[in-house]
């Protein structure tokens, strides 16, 4: 148990000690080696890197060097990432066997390990993190502490203004003032739908009950999304603190965070954060003698996508099958155990402490007219800089894909980006300059979603893409309502038929009719948005659907059933390699004369095309 004064002391002392983390010109002899311990880098052996670094430091008797585990730096494509502060040297794709050299060359001899320095997309060698184009257009608010502090050390969190916002709220602000601040900041739900956060808080505060709950939705389920996981892994205390502020504002003294069990590091760090906060007397009874009680518990999800839907999540917390409830009543009035419940997503909470400390005006100065602040995206797919990015609302898709993401690899062309995961839609090249905000994305048939952003190059078939997402929703439908349970399955079957060359005239219209009815008639958000990937690909790439149906061709060449391999006799030198590669004996021809493929035998495996030294075989 620590008194408030003791917390202040920790903050002051630790802040000085950790100045070198954020101040390149820090006047110190100390060095901190920051090693990413997010899930990605951890699976690329970053714990071993920490071990090896410590070993080398000990061997070289360096007393002024500390190795710190941190959360995600964002540029996952370059992981495992090792950064040395205060000079901010950035070593990329580090292996455990590089550690001895890093310590010897960089720390003992004071020279850079050139071969490990990160290269930007344009080939320029980057010595410092902030020189990377990847970071230039980013603004880190939700991710402020990720990659800066050791997430398992509450003192480091306190050093960087941790629990200061809570103190401000409990000591200086009334619940109404807090809600007013959140409202005026313009913050909207980062889970996807973008409901004004302040309004949600107000509704839950207004609901009459002796018992209310605060819930954090950390059931991140979109394929390719890892924003919430990274926040929980890199800065768990900021979510604890925000949930406490929310509890104080709406009159709740109990909170639950619903995390998927597939996020073991996030779960472990969050539990540690809860334990530390309890130990410091930050969570518990009569916090800092204010009379405010608050405690938090983790609830593990078993990986059902539908449990990210807030009412299904509540059912699951209560121990039942994860199925959505009908709304209204909304959770603000009847949530967990029928009590008023505030549910926000991880990233939403991650903005709260900053809004409280810096003010609503500061926050609302960032972003666009209707979408304030920043948004974190998990950038993936056919893009060079795969990773976690946080940009001010209003940044264009082009800036994210090309300036931050470094463009499309392998010299290919940008074809489309998918936002909002299986609930969202695709955005074609013609809309690359659309500013990213809730309304603009909605207008072009996509949605903000929780922040998965998957880039596709011109080798990707859009019908196949729609099929992939439908396959996901069919698997993840809970089975409660008819349109989603059977309707999505029928849509998938239609798409399967089309990609297998068995599409019929009228299938597109059939898909559209079914899609629109599923959207309007399904119980919850999952079903209501499940047809979006189909509708948006039909909207922008109708010709591709038609090519599959009418011409039995897949223009992108991705749909195997529609591919037909042929050998260009002008390019073929008759080397015979393809003939040897073919597993079914579909290729014939004499040496030194052009070979031919028998399409009735060919199984379209593509082995011949990949081995042809003259690129004479095409789909």
């Amino acid at each position, binding site marked *: 148990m620590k008194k408030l004064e003791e917390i202040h002391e920790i903050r002051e002392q630790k802040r000085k000690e950790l100045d070198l983390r954020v101040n390149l010109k820090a006047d110190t002899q100390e060095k901190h080696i920051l090693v990413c311990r997010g899930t990605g880098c951890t699976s690329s052996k970053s714990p071993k890197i920490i071990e090896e670094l410590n070993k080398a430091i000990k061997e070289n008797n360096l007393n002024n060097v500390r190795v710190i585990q941190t959360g995600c730096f964002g540029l996952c494509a370059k992981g495992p990432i090792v950064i040395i502060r205060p000079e901010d040297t950035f070593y990329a794709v580090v292996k455990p066997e590089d550690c001895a050299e890093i310590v010897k060359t960089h720390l003992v001899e004071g020279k850079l390990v050139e071969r490990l320095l990160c290269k930007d997309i344009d080939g320029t060698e980057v010595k410092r993190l902030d020189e990377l184009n990847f970071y230039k257009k980013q603004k880190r608010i939700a991710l402020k502490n990720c990659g800066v502090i050791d997430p398992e050390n509450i003192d480091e969190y306190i050093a960087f203004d941790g629990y200061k916002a809570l103190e401000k709220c409990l000591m200086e602000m009334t619940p109404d003032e807090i809600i007013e601040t959140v409202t005026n900041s313009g913050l909207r739900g980062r889970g996807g739908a973008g409901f004004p956060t302040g309004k949600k808080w107000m509704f839950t505060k207004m609901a009459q009950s002796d018992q209310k709950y605060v819930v954090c939705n950390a059931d991140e389920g979109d394929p390719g999304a890892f924003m919430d996981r990274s926040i929980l892994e890199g800065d768990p205390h900021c979510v604890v603190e925000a949930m406490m502020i929310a509890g104080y504002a709406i009159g709740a003294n109990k909170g639950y965070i619903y995390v998927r069990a597939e996020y073991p590091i996030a779960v472990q760090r969050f539990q540690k954060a809860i334990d530390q906060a309890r130990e410091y007397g930050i969570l518990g009874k009569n916090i800092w003698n204010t009379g405010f009680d608050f405690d938090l518990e983790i609830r593990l999800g078993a990986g059902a996508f539908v449990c990210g839907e807030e009412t299904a999540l509540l059912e699951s917390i209560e121990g039942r099958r994860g199925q959505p409830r009908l709304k209204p009543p909304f959770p603000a009035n009847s949530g967990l155990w029928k009590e008023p419940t505030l549910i926000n997503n991880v990233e939403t909470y991650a903005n709260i402490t900053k809004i409280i400390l810096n003010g609503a005006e500061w926050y609302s100065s960032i972003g666009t007219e209707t979408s304030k602040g920043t948004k974190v995206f998990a950038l993936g797919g056919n893009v060079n800089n795969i990773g976690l990015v946080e940009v001010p609302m209003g940044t264009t898709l082009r800036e994210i894909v090309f300036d931050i993401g470094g463009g499309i690899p392998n010299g290919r062309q940008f074809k489309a980006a998918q936002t909002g995961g299986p609930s969202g839609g695709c955005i074609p090249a013609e809309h690359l300059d659309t500013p990213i905000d809730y309304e603009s994305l909605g207008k072009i048939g996509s949605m903000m979603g929780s922040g998965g952003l998957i880039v596709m190059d011109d080798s990707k078939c859009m019908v196949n893409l729609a099929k992939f997402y439908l396959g996901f929703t069919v698997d993840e439908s809970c089975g409660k309502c008819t349109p989603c349970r059977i309707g999505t399955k029928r849509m998938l079957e239609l798409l399967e038929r089309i990609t297998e060359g068995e599409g019929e005239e009228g299938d597109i219209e059939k898909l559209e009719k079914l899609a629109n009815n599923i959207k309007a008639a399904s119980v919850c958000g999952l079903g*209501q948005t499940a047809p979006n990937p189909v509708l948006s690909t039909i909207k922008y790439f109708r010709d591709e659907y038609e090519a599959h149906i009418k011409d039995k061709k897949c223009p992108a060449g991705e749909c195997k059933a529609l591919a037909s391999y042929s050998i260009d006799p002008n390019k073929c030198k008759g080397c015979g390699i393809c003939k040897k590669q073919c597993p079914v004996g579909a290729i014939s021809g004499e040496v030194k004369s052009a070979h031919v493929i028998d399409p009735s035998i060919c199984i379209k495996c593509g082995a011949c095309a990949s081995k042809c030294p003259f690129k004479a075989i095409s789909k």
Partner: protein
Amino acid sequence: MSENKMINITIDGKQLSVEEGKTVLEAARQANIEIPTLCFLKDINEVGDCRMCIVEIEGRRGYTPSCIQKVEEGMNIKTNTPALIEARRVVLDLILSNHDRKCLTCTRNGNCELQALAEKYNVTEIEYDGERNEYEIDELSPAIVKDLNKCILCRRCVATCNKVQEIGAIGVANRGFASCVSTASNASLNDVNCTFCGQCIEACPVGALKEKDSTQLVWRKLRDKDAYVVVQTAPAVRVALGEEFGMEIGTNVAGKMVTALKRLGFDKVFDTNTGADFTIMEEGTEFIERLKNNGVLPMITSCSPGWVRYIEMNYPDLLPHVSTCKSPHQMFGAIIKSYYAEKMNIDPAKIFMVSVMPCISKKFEITRDDMAGAGYSDVDAVLTTRELARMIKQANLDFTTLEDSGFDDPMGEATGAGAIFGTTGGVMEAALRTVSEVLEGKELNKLEFKEVRGEKDIKKADLQIAGKDIKVAVASGLANAKKIMEEIKNGNADYQFVEIMACPGGCVMGGGQPIKSSKIRATVDVRKKRAEGLYSIDEKSQFRKSHENPAVKKIYDEYLEKPGSHKAHELLHTSYVEREKYKM
């Protein structure tokens, strides 16, 4: 009582003033605006899952299910726009696409809520056909057949089993398209905690749940020249059978039923009500003995086999509380195969005893051990009310115009006490009529014990009989039975006599009775109408106390000596076993 607040709404342009708390569906029905439903079952399954009852509400995105949406001031609702009709057709199309559409060979042909909707919405072909889930049919139990190929996942059965009966034998397993109504470990209903109450069948809008057919066996026996085929009919059958022929709910069709049974070719047609009179004689005697000799109290009735199966599975330690009396039709069967056979000089081995029952669990009951009082199984086949109706239809009998006939002697005349066995509280009332006279040692004027009548879940009464304070309780529905059992288990029950029926409302609402659509169940009090039919039989009866039944008196005099005698025990009593809930 203050008047409920009224809410002003508009449905399809009609301005309405509706009581607060009503759903849009209820409001529409009040105004004679029809909205189709499928998964909705009033008070039991109000979930809005199937999406047939969707409506448009001004200012709302998407469609809203009217079955659960409460009316709100100023709500402007549209129920039949072209867009809604298309959406409902799509929903119906999707359901049908995953439905085993063998309507012609389905027991629910003509009485299927899905079929009625398909006809109404003019679904003549399936637009979104595709893969269909295929399941093995579960027909291992003696009572219930579960055919998931016909299941539309409305979950009315699941809600009934879990919420009304609190058994939880079935639930939903798997996700999405693979979701299905399943038991624990997907075992047969025969091997889990199912009591065979059959309420799930009553809830099913399609043919996914049905009784195990016995009509074929009975037809076969009726053709068998060597067999002496005797039939008996339970009290509740006669006030429901007419419904299958379009007659008003609760109409007493005993006379037509007897005529029909004779025309079907049964050698004798008897009344189970007489069996009920025997039950009262035995059970009343057993109760008085327990009362006098400090036996295990409260004594609990044993007429309902679903209930017996329930206690055997869930409260085996409390089995000594259950009366050892067989249920009326088993008693009656035992007497037919002993006394009657002797008297008529018929080889009991040749007697084939058929019971027409409102009950599914009776099909299981006849397979129990210790149910062969005369050395031959008391009863050989059980037909539900529905199955009898099917046989009558097959025989081309124009049921509504049949003349009346009486049950066959020598056991034709039953008492009103026997008749009211068919409704909750009836056994208790019949027993009290006899027990109070036996204890008081004189004829009493009190015939009606209205405190044990009616629809309340649990009815209690505190009676003064022969200077004794006698407390009784009556429960119907297994969720209510559970409450009483918990009281007994925890030592909080101060009753001496308890009546329990597995089905809510008693046998009139048994799992073998004519199936009523969701709409009828929501708008008509079926239980009350059928029960009134029985009470009216009681009122008109010459004899209203079991111990005054001349046939019963005669058989005790000639054959059984007296109630509770050794002979009576041999024929009319049975035993119970502790039963495993899950045979896995």
